């Protein structure tokens, strides 16, 4: 088993904190040029997925619940909503990793896209403004933007850690 040094662990934790602050910052401003403020990526889902997939920051279920509750206070609609999403991502990742061997970049991206879809599904069914007639286009845009944000974050996190 490859063990991480304390410096590496601290680095990952600091990275998580910094990126979380940036996510909070970005979630309060819309995308320039897009009038509809609903069309924006879900930065927290895009941030947590690479940390869970790459087993960074020494995250476990309890830490994910606490992070989720903090996120709920800032941008959530219901207390426990994001905590629920994060532990669901954790569970889905565990199940997939038990059943399949995820090695290549394409596999990782496919898995992450699958996790994004699960997250949005939970977000949709637990939303206070739940409506079966929610415009599918908006959700599709959000999913695509979240996937793009995830890709950018994934590259950024990999480079930051490998330094």
């Amino acid at each position: 088993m490859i063990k991480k040094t304390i410096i590496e662990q601290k680095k990952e934790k600091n990275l998580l904190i910094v990126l979380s602050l940036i996510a909070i910052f970005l979630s309060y401003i819309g995308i320039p040029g897009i009038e509809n403020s609903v069309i924006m990526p879900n930065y927290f889902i895009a941030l947590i997925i690479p940390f869970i997939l790459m087993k960074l920051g020494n995250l476990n279920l309890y830490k994910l619940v606490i992070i989720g509750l903090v996120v709920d206070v800032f941008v959530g609609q219901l207390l426990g909503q994001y905590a629920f999403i994060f532990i669901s991502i954790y569970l889905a990742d565990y199940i997939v990793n038990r059943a399949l061997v995820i090695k290549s970049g394409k596999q990782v991206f496919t898995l992450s896209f699958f996790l994004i879809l699960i997250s949005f599904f939970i977000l949709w069914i637990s939303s206070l403004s739940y409506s079966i007639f929610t415009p599918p286009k908006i959700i599709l845009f959000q999913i695509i933007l979240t996937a793009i944000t995830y890709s950018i974050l994934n590259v950024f996190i990999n480079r930051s850690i490998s330094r």
Partner: protein
Amino acid sequence: MAQKESKVKLKLFNRAEFPLFSFFILFILCLVLMGVDYRYQILPKIKSEFSIITAPIIYLINLPKNILNESKDSFITKAILKEKIKNLEQTNYSLSIQIQENVLIKSENKILRDTLRIKKKFKIKGATAEIILPDVKNGFKILTVSKGFKDNIKTGSAVINNEGLVGQIINTSKTYSELRPITSEAYAVPAIMNNSKENVILFGNGNGGLEIPLFPANISIQINDTFITSGVDDLYPKGIKIGRVTEIKPTNSPKFNFIVITPFSQPTTFSQITVVNKRK
């Protein structure tokens, strides 16, 4: 420098058993939290408590955007203002046209309503038509009406509108008719004064009015007295308003006065009229 090794059990590539019990507990906790929050609205209260911290952050985050928007409003260009004025003028113009149309429709509506009321009052049966063209034939003023014998309009029928007597149909074709107005020189109608039983005949003077050349001087008559149809000729329904007295002149004979009457009805183009069915 040697790096200190972590004593914490790392999760990288950890294939340990899934903490199912913890997951189950947390899963239930999250559901309970969501349910309780939905029921008691806890999150808004927490957010309001945290607003002391979050509000300044949100304000600072949105500050550049707000400044940009405010500066855009402040430095709105002259061209934009001109364009706005132009658009408003166009809107104003189209609205003024609509108002005119509405006034016309309102007026027509009133006339039609009044026409229908007259029909009910006097039990007049007839066809409603419209004056489409004023004309002069052989020195007489003639009005063209939009309906002809196809619509059961017959020569000699009386024509009225909501204001009173208009004239008489003198010629009909399939789709239109010609109407001689009561003010025409060749026009005569039996009438009575509103407040007396004296039968008289009114003649058109060809100058926008009617007249009685020889009105008995012993009959009391005053300015603004009104004349209505007497109905003695079986052509015009009884009681249709004709006009009011506007002038009383003495004649060469002291036994008679010359009376000038201004008609109530002065139909113009596109006004509505009713052609009364001739009595059999």
